[in-house]
């Protein structure tokens, strides 16, 4: 079981209020991702749940039990750190065994769990090496192995993939998702990378300055962002946000349109501009369109990979009216 409830939790460091009162419920078996820009309090929130920081006020409940003042070890949660935090003087086997040794698990049970974890994480050949002799991905797996053997009620991941190279990151992302499907344990995952959030999460919590901006499934956030911040943060490349006269036509302060919901043409369309940088990805091309008269920011538009446009060409854009997002003066969805 791993149902975690935060009830009016706040955190201040001295005079700085990092997390204003915050309520959140994480259901058993869910994969929840906290996402937000640097310094938004997502790691602090995770450390509050882990018990590595004390809450200033409010209550944390794990499976209905008040865990606010419980020491980290008693909460039954396992954490994977950004730096992996492996013990450098211990072999991989001893690293994985450490939490069991502390908990007084019998030797043969320890051995069984280590073998099982090593097998599922492809670490069997490396059990007698030191962390210093492993690659980044292997260290990451050892850190996950050390978390698995505790059989925790929930896993906490603190930006676990940010130290890996791009290819390995995609692999580990899949492995962690597979792990979640196999274990069906609650996982809380902190990242600043919205692609990781979108691909892995059952539920995304978007944070800004300690406030929860929106909670929802990846597609909910994509289709119905509740405010401008979420709209701009979720989706890659970013949504185009247009203010001024064009927004007034729709009776709102800001309209947003995603690059993939703009139709591009070389002959005719609603808006027009000149093509700037074209980013060719093969399947798609992202065009940055300037001089469109809708604001100072260039518009980003996704076109087919084969579309024959060049730097400086004239281009016409037509937004898909049904996919247009409207935001009022406060930045809230209208």
């Amino acid at each position: 079981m791993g149902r975690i409830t935060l009830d009016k939790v706040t955190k201040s460091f001295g005079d700085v209020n990092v997390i204003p009162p915050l309520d959140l419920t994480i259901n058993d078996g869910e994969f929840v991702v906290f996402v937000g820009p640097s310094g938004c309090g997502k790691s602090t929130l995770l450390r509050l749940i882990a018990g590595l920081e004390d809450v200033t006020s409010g209550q944390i409940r794990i499976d209905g039990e008040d865990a606010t003042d419980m020491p980290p070890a008693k909460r039954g949660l396992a954490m994977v750190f950004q730096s992996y935090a492996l013990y450098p003087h211990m072999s991989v086997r001893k690293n994985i065994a450490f939490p069991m040794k502390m908990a007084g698990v019998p030797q043969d049970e320890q051995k069984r769990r280590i073998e099982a974890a090593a097998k599922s994480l492809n670490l069997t050949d490396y059990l007698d090496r030191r962390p210093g002799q492993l690659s980044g991905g292997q260290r990451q797996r050892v850190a996950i192995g050390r978390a698995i053997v505790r059989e925790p009620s929930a896993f906490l991941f603190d930006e676990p993939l940010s130290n890996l190279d791009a290819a390995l990151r995609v692999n580990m992302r899949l492995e962690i998702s597979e792990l979640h499907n196999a274990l069906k344990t609650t996982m809380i995952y902190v990242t600043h990378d919205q692609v990781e959030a979108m691909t892995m999460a059952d539920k995304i919590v978007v944070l800004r300055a300690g406030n929860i901006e929106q909670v929802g499934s990846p597609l909910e956030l994509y289709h119905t962002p509740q405010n401008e911040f979420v709209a701009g943060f979720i989706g890659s490349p970013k949504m185009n946000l247009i203010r001024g006269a064009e927004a007034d036509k729709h009776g709102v302060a800001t309209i947003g349109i995603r690059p993939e919901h703009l139709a591009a043409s070389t002959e005719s369309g609603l808006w027009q501009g000149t093509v700037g940088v074209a980013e060719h990805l093969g399947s798609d091309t992202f065009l940055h369109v300037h001089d469109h008269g809708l604001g100072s920011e260039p518009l980003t538009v996704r076109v087919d990979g084969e579309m024959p446009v060049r730097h400086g060409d004239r281009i016409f854009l037509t937004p898909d009216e049904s996919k247009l997002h409207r935001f009022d003066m406060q930045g809230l969805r209208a």
Partner: protein
Amino acid sequence: MATKASRAAARLMISPAVLLLLGWMIVPLSMTLYFSFLRYNLLMPGMEEFTGWTNYRFFLTDPAFTAALWNTLLLVGGVLLITTVGGTLLALLMDQPFWGQGIVRILVIAPFFVMPTVSALVWKNMFMNPVNGLFAHLAKFFGLQPYDFLAQAPLGSIIFIVSWQWLPFATLILLTALQSLDQEQLEAAEMDGAGPLSRFFYIMVPHLARAITVVILIQTIFLLSVFAEILVTTNGGPGVASTNLTYLIYMQSLLQFDVGGGSAGGVVAIILANIVAIFLMRMIGKNLEA
């Protein structure tokens, strides 16, 4: 910068320094070796003659030698024990955030800047003196008999004084090592269910192993040759109760004017120091490998 020419130039340029250091070491060493085989007493100048191993035989069979050997080992071992254990505990304490941290750190290093003769005299006259010392006053305040530290426990007192001097060194080295410990490792251990004691023994001590090795090696070098503290406090006495090898050699060559015997003692000390060094490197040298 690893061409043949640059490497040859590098060798050429460091050679004066190397030759100077080599000469600096080899000349006194060979003179000591040479003197150790002579009957050479400053009270009888011009009477030097070759005596073979006699100097060594006299030095090694002197009852004071065995006593000095044990005293040396006790002194080195005792100070090492006190400074590494005490230094680790002090470093742990000073690693905690508290008000006035900067000043406390400066105060802690202070004993290291006090000259050995001065600190030994301060301890001898102001603290350990059985009549005027602070400890004597304290004892009298509680109605106890003052304890004459330097007469009753001469070696213990010297170990204490030398430890006081070297504790700051150990504390500082261990403190910097402790500060380089990744906090996430401690947090991970905490999440893994390790209490404060387990965290100390399983995470901190292994992390400190290298720093402790450095402390032990450097201190051993200096502690084998403790001299000033003995000279100004006990003069090696009572009897030979606080005489170490260095002090014994000093007595031999400068109090008895026996250059030959002193030289033989010096050579014995060199050999013993090397034995200690070999043992140390065997025991803890692997900690220095990356």
